Each structure stands twice: as structure tokens, then as C-alpha cells.
């Protein structure tokens, strides 16, 4: 296969830390090498498709709206009432075809750019753009939200301490520039990281 060129390939190498002196308050990294499959169902096949999705990810059950679940083979995000996103390593086999009456799968691996935001000031940085309550009690690890970032619809979730953003690929560089500019006040390090299943998932 050819080399993948992600949306931020040309943007995330600042080299040194930038902005406020001292330890960086924010780390911004593009996560690469993942596959993203949308699994959609119909109202009457919600349980059936959820179970199938959970089986693929090897997690106990498919997550409820606004939640994610991690398993040994991937992570499931409930992004809409009838839709999950399955995030796995890039080279996994496509999931088995579903009968149209059961549901629909769709590859969105290149449609979203994944940005991980970490550090002491991560939630503050995001709140410069996102009108969401990100306090730990309101948005604990495992939470998923669809929200707006500078007019653009994005998906946000929290895994452990990090916030994860799935940005539409075409908008990713523009939104990344805003994040990097605003993060200067906290001190920022940028980079790229290859996708790995998060620790603590049910292996």
C-alpha cells in the first residue's frame, strides 16, 4: 500500500515547544494509523447490531448515546441514536457485510482527522472553542459528544485524561491552526502519534 498522507502531516512539526515558557500546558498530537467504520442500524435492529459491534470490538456491550466502550479489538463510540463508530487499527479486515435490512457499514477512515489534546490546560484550550461543559463531573472519561468547533461539526470524546477530537478531514488544518494559535498562551508541544488501543481496555 502507498504511504498515507494525513491532513495534518504538513502542520504538526513545530519542532520545539512554542508559546509560554516553562512546561507545556497543552500537547496537541495527530493520531494516525487508525480505521474508522460507521455502523448504522434501524430502530428495530438496535440490539442486534449493537451486539455485533460489541463483538467486533470485543467489549462487553455497545455504548449508549454519549458514551464510548473500549474492547481488545477496538473502541466503539455512540455518535448518533442509530450509529456507532468503530475505531480500530488500520489494517483490520473490513467487518462482515450486514444485510441491508439489518444495518449498514461505511468506511470513514480518511473522512476524519484525529487530534489528541492533553495537558493541564487541555480542557481550557478546548473551551476557547467548544461550548461544552468539560468539567470532570460533566464529561468524565468515556464521554462522547457531537459539537461545533468554529462552525464545524466535530466529535469529541474523553479517554483517560486526554480529550480526543475527530475533525472532518477538510477542516482539520484550519481548526488545528486555531488550536495551535490559542495554545501559545499555555505553552504547546505538537506532534504525531500512531494509534494504539488505550490501556485499561478489556483485553
Amino acid at each position: 500500500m502507498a504511504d498515507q498522507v494525513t491532513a495534518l502531516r504538513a502542520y504538526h512539526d513545530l519542532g520545539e515547544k512554542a508559546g509560554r515558557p516553562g512546561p507545556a500546558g497543552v500537547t496537541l498530537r495527530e493520531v494516525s494509523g487508525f480505521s474508522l467504520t460507521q455502523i448504522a442500524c434501524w430502530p428495530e435492529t438496535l440490539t442486534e447490531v449493537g451486539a455485533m459491534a460489541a463483538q467486533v470490538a470485543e467489549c462487553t456491550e455497545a455504548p449508549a448515546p454519549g458514551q464510548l466502550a473500549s474492547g481488545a479489538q477496538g473502541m466503539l463510540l455512540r455518535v448518533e441514536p442509530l450509529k456507532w463508530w468503530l475505531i480500530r487499527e488500520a489494517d483490520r479486515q473490513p467487518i462482515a457485510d450486514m444485510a441491508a435490512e439489518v444495518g449498514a457499514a461505511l468506511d470513514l477512515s480518511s473522512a476524519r482527522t484525529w487530534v489528541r489534546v492533553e495537558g493541564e490546560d487541555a480542557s481550557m484550550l478546548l473551551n476557547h472553542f467548544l461550548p461544552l461543559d468539560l468539567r470532570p463531573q460533566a464529561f468524565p472519561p468515556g464521554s462522547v459528544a457531537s459539537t461545533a468547533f468554529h462552525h464545524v461539526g466535530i466529535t469529541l470524546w474523553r479517554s483517560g485524561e486526554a480529550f480526543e477530537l475527530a475533525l472532518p478531514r477538510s477542516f482539520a488544518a484550519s481548526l488545528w491552526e486555531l488550536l495551535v494559535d490559542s495554545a501559545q498562551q499555555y505553552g504547546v508541544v505538537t506532534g504525531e502519534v500512531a494509534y494504539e488501543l488505550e490501556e485499561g481496555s478489556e483485553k
Partner: protein
Amino acid sequence: MTARRLDQGGRIDRATPLTFRWDGKELTGYAGDTLASALMANGERVLGRSFKYHRPRGIMSAGVEESGAIVSVGQGARQEPNVKATMQELYEGLETRGQNAWPNVRRDLGAVNGLFGRFLAAGFYYKTFMGVPLFEWGRGTGLWMKYETLIRKAAGMGRASREADPDQYDHAHAFCDVLVVGGGPAGLRAALTAAEAGRDVILVEQDFELGGDLLNDPAGEAERGALVRSVERAGVRVMTRTTAFGLYDMGVAGLVERVSDHLSAPAAYLPRQRFWTVRAGATVLATGALERSVAFGGNDRPGVMTANSGRSYLNRYGILPGERIVVATTNDSAYVTAGELAAAGAEVTIAEARNAPGCELPAGVTLRTGVAPLKAEGRSKLRALRLARPNGAGWQAAGREACDLLLVSGGWSPVVNLASHRGVKPEWDAELACFLAGDCDEPVYMAGSAAGVWTREACETSGVEVAKRAMGLASNPPAAGGWTAPIRPLYEVRLPGRKAKAFVDPQHDVTCSDVRLAHQEGFVSVEHLKRYTTLGMATDQGKMGNIIGLALMAEALGKEIPAVGTTRFRPPYTPVAIGALAGRNVHGHFKPLRRTPLHDWNLRQGATMTDAGLWHRPWYFAGPGETLGDAYVREAATVRQTVGICDVSSLGKIAVQGPDAAEFLNRVYTNGFAKLAIGKARYGIMLRDDGMVMDDGTTWRIGEADFLMTTTTTNAGRVMVWLEELLQLRWPELKVHVTSVTDQWAGVSVAGPKSRAVVAACLRDPDSVSHETLPFMGVAPVVLRDGTEGLIARISFSGELAFELYVPGNYGEAMMEQLWTAAARHEGCLYGLEALGTLRIEKGHVTGAELDGRVTIRDAGLGGMASTKKPYIGKALQERPELQRPDRPRLVGILPKDRSKTFNGGALLCKPGAQSGFGEGWVTAVTHSPALGHWIGLGYISGGHDQWVGQLAIAADPVRGEPVEVEIVSPHMFDPEGVRMHG
């Protein structure tokens, strides 16, 4: 006023002297000073000039209500006008200037306006429209245009910089259980109470220090310090230098945080300000109260201040603001100030408007009872105060007191502004002579002196109790009031028949006479009074003058104040910089930019980009020395001769999936999609409900229940929303999911006679694009030589043999490298939007320029695609008689009669000799056609080209150029049979 810095005392840091400049003079202050206190300590008295009359003005207060010391700070692009010196923190190197004066505020030639004061009364501006008496009577003025400039020059405030704002601003969102606005005794107690009860609390204070009135009281410092530490320990998020400027629906508050306005050399990584949107479960407004003045002659003179500000300058800034001080009061609040000033060495006389004070007379202070200020004498320096005593319903002169400082307390006005933003009606409390906020049906609560509670102890109790209420607990806040003897309501002092300039709203130079004039002329409603006199419309928004203005109008009408009413306060409480509103949505980020997966690759190939909706798309790829015109003609010609490659990734792409997907598309498109075979694409047109064309594009059937719809670049979002709406609201029974996959795919169009060879060279199975395997409008999955999986469709926008090749976005550059290498072998080119336009105009293919929302499918020449056999959206309404008229403008091709000439896009098409009105049609697109060798265009004209056979039209563009004779032809100007495309 002969102010001097005391050797000790105050909260300033005498170990940190700061140098700053005032009107070019270098002066020194201390850390902890405001610009106002530093100027006062340096003996500067005249700091501003008034709006209309250019009267000298000095410091009138110590807070946001300041109406005299209004100055410009900063230099160059950072010059900011109309800054209240009382709110500007001093820093090393601060540059400040007086404004609205020439040559300077001390000697201002504009002061000549004062002599014409009687012509500049309320409404003079409007009256200038009526015409010069006698000469222009009754027909309005023609001179207006001449003297408007002069008036605008003479009046006004500071000037903003003309340069672009060099600073950054951030927006920010925050959430809390309880938002406390105001860090005085009540606010601190409220924040502490809520935080100790486990609530998440944000405390907002506009000052740079917490404490409110505690900052003015050295005796309260220990308590203040302890309280502030407790608040911080309790986990309250404290935001100083932050103003809550507005309250909105659902517990939303707008804040402006001044991050670096107080720093002499702010770091480049810091924003200047942050604009916060706070969503709070409950809001406690401990916003304090502002002291009012009284209207009397010369009440705007330098040396006349509110009483409590005298205390602030003494105790907070260590300045004795005068040597011989008169404290004119109507209530008990000024007595502490008088005593402290006397103790600090000033000679202090209290002019008490009541017959007896309600509290003990402080040591060393002289008391005169039953007198009120009548006229401040002096010009730029106060010399004496003439007093008056009541005489029946009016006043009579009662002697003169020499003084260099006059402190006035006409009572206190609780800051109810933020509650007013929520629609809470202020209610007049006659006993306290002030407006209090009425009940609010939202969780917004008033605490402390903002609720009319006057004593320190009661304010603290109020903070505690109101915090409990905000938490939904039982509470018992103290009642408003707290003085032992009542206030004597006093708004104006004047002698009958004597003229005096007594100011109601000093910032806008509104006098008592102006209010009476408004009444005489019939502007008696409080809303009319405001607009006619501009009372309350200056940068302080009526903080100083509103109550006095209402009182005067009430008197003129013979009514009580509540019967006159009050205007509602609107946001912002204090001015908000435009930059803070804009945040980071400026320059290249005014709108988010969309980049295709090939964006950087295109740039590396020398693309010049152009906007297409939010996208940047290649416009043209100029070779050495080529202009736009050279480049696009070469590109279009190359496509027709060999092959060209164009990035079409920005086309909208929507996955339509589900057992009812075919049925859904069949309802959305005018033509049939139910029987589209797997592996086939079809061009479709969708209409709006009103029968007008909405969008067009090809839709590909990938599987039985799996379609890929393409839309135009600019309509992609609209179509997506439309499809979602149809599925959710109109046809919820259809089992269809639509998902935008625009961003998933990198797409290119490979067009031209050599396109098959180029594409085949990049595929594992070159035969998969043979004419037999992939006929015209065929769609198939493909594998590139490097293993990348994608989709290919044999569709053409250019009219040539052409393919659209899609791979996942991350593989876009790799695909492009392979195609480009293969195309080079055929002397192919990259082409941009301009050449794409040329190719489609030659073919008569429509885009957004033709499908502009006003045309029907028949107008666009695509009537054959409107099915008669099935229903579809827009079918009924496109049958409206008006849309059936034979003379409706229809899509046509346009050629200049003289083939060497050109004409303009947007020109009107007219009958010869009838170049007027709307004409018979219009030109939508023009290009130079390399295939035909001359300029061509598309457009709409009444009846279509059949009606214009043998008849010339005129392309008229009276604004930009000469009329041009044109021939009206079929829009299919090149290869009308489509031989090349099917080849």
C-alpha cells in the same frame, strides 16, 4: 483641588515606582495606582474636555461611572480612545493623552463652543435639518452637507486608531453552579458560602483587586485579606480584571477579561482580552451601588467628585485629594469620609442638606446643616462653593465656602443593570431614593448594596443569605436600607430665575435646562427624553445622570419618579472592544478553510487557488510567464488534445444506504433512480418544493442498497441538510441512512482523448477501464498499482472521454503522483477551475451560475429529465402556469457576432434598440473557447434560442462597457452529439 500624595498609607506599592506619560509629560506613580490616582497625585487637574461645550473636566469618581477623566491610551495601532482613567491600571511606560481638545485639554480652543451654548441645546442637531430661519424656513436645509462635517469635528470624543488591531483575542466558555458578580463584601461572602457548601463557583471582579469598598477602608484590611484567602482556599475560581457586561437567557453571562491591558510589555503568546460565555446554574449579583451627584451650577468643574471617591483616593491610593474640602451630602454615608479626610490633615466642612445628621459628627469636622451646593466657582480649579438653603419649595442663597475640593453625595444607586438585562423592572424605593431590582423569575439574585443594603455588616450577611437562596436553601437576607436617619432626596439646586450650567449627564453635556427643554417641546416620555437629549447614551450609559434626569422630568410633569418610569439598561455594562467580540474569527480564520486531500500537492505544482464556498480549489496552474488567460486556454486546449487532471475532491459526496435508498432517491430526483443498475451512474436533478432547481450531480449505485450521491461543491451542505430533513420529518418510514463522505475521498477527473491510457497505466488491471468493461456512465471498484482501493466512474463534465477516480483521502497524494507521472508521458496537464469552466461552457453544462434558484428544469434545458411517470419533490409546483410560460428565459449559448469581440458575464441581453429595463435575458458565463477559437457564453433569454434564430441580441453592460451584438445559439456549442465523450 490641591491634591498631594501622603507619605504613607494606601494600598500602592511605594517600592515600585512607575513612569508614565501624560500629554507628552513624563510623570511617576506607583504599582497599585490607577491612571486617575497617579495623575491626581501629580497635581493634574484638567484631564478631559466635554463633548459639546469643551468644558474642562477632571476626575469625578473612582470607578466605572467616571464621566470626566476620559482619555486615550496607547500608541499607533494600539491607541484606544475613551478610556476611563479611573479604570486604567498604571504600568511602566503607559502612554496617555487628553482627547477632544486642541492643542491640549488644559488650553482647548474648542472651549469657544461654550459661548454658543444656547444654540447647542438639546435637539440642536435635529433642528439643523429644519433649515436656516427665514431663508430656508419650512423646506429643510441645503447647508446641512456643509456644516455636518464641522459639527462632527467639533463634537465628539477620542479617535480610534485607523490601523488594523495587532492584538489577539480569545473566546472562552465556562460552566459553574454559582456565578458571583462583584468581589466586594457581599460578593466575597456569597462566593465563600456557596463554595463551602460544595458548589462550583466563579467570582468575577472588574477591579484588579478583590474587596470592593473594603479596599477603601484600612481598618477592614485584615478582614479583607482573610476573606480573600478563604475564598481562594474554598476553590472559588476568581477572575479579576473581568467585567460581567451582560446577562442573557438560561443563566448565560458575558464577561470580558482584560488579560494584558495592564502589562507594559505583554508576551506575544498572551491574548489581549478574553471574551467569556459563562453558563451558570445560579447568578448572584453583588454589583454594588454607585454614588450620585446633585445637579447644581458648575457641578462638572474639576475638583467636584463623588464623596466616596474622596475616601478611595485617600485610603486606597494614599492621596489627600484637597486641603479645604466641602462634603455636600444628603445622607449618612459621607460622614466617615469627612472624618478620615479631616484626620489626614484636611480642613473639612460638611454641608448637610438635612436639618440634622443621622450619625455622630466626626472629630475635626465643621457641620453646616440645611444647606446644599448651589454653584461651584472657579474654572479649571475650584475656588469656592456657593450654598443655598430651602425657601418654601425653592432655594435661596446661603453664603459661600472657600474650598479646593467638593465631595458630593446625592445618594446611592444600586447597580441593577445586569438584572435589567434579564427584563427585571427596576422599582422605585421612595424611602431610599433609588431603584431596586424587582423580582426575577430566573435564578438571578441581588446581594449587598446592589440590593439596597447600605451597611458593611448587612452586606456581608446579605451575601451569605443570598448565596443560600441561590443554592435553593432557606434564607433570610437583610432588608434594604440601614441608615439611622433617612436620606433627603435631592436632585437639583437652583435659584429661581437664575441661569446656571448644571449637568445631569456630564459625558454628553446634558444639562437641567436640556431636560426642561425636552419637556417643553413635548418629549415627555422617558424614551423620548433619552433620545432627544442623548441623556444616558454616552459611554457610561446613564450611570451618572439617569436618576437626576428622571427626577427633573417628574418635577416638570408634576409626577412622582416611578410614574415617569425608567429606561431599561442594555448590555454591555461597560464598553466591549470589537476585537473581543471577533475573537480569533479574523483574517484567514474569518471562515474555516476547507482543504482537499490534494491541497498541498496542488500548491507544490504551482496552483493559484480560488475560493469555492469554504474550499480553496486550484484556479489555474500558470507556467513560466503565463497569465490566467494564457494558462486556462492552454489547460482547456490540452484536455481536448491529450489529457488533463483536475482535483474534484470538493464535490459534495453523500453515502445513501439502506433497503429504501433507491426509493428515496427516486423521490428526490426528477428522473428515475429506482431501476438504476448496480455499477452505473446517473445524472440527476433535484428540485425544491417550489419546483425550482436545487442542485444536480451524478449518483452512483455501488450495491443494491448502497449509493454514492455527488452534489455541487457549494450546495453539498444544503443538500445534506435537505436529505436529513426529508428522512426525519417527511418520510421517517424509509430505512435510509445518509452520511456525508465528502471528506473521505480524494477525487480527480482525468479527461481527454488520452485519459483511458493514463488511468489504465495506474491500475492493477488496465482492462478494468476498457470501453467494454466500463462503458459510459459505468462505475466500478478499482485497485491502483500500489494496492490502494478506490472507485472509478466514467463520467464527463468536459465533454471528453473522462473518468473520475476516487481513493480514500489519505491516499490522494499517492494516487496523484501515479496519475501525474502517467499523464506526463502524454504531455498532459493539470487544470483548474477556470479551464473546467471553459470546457463546460463549450458543452453547455450548467453550474451554480445557471442554477441560481430562479430557474426550472425546463428553463435550464433539462426538461426531458422531468419524469412524467412518478412523483418527485417539486413536481406539483413546477406545473404552475407562470412557470409554463413559453417566453420564460431559457438556457442558451451566446456568440459575439464579430468573433473578435467579447462581452461580459452579468450583461443584460436586449433586443436591438431596446436597451432598457431588465432586457430579455442575461449572461451567466463567458469564456474564450480554444476549441472554437473565439469568445463564447451561456445565459438565459426569453423563449430560448429557437425564438432568436436569425435575430441578433445586444449584450448590454452600461456600467462596464459598450454594448456588443451577439448571436443566440444552442447551449451545446461544442461536439453537440457527444461523440468525443462516448468515444
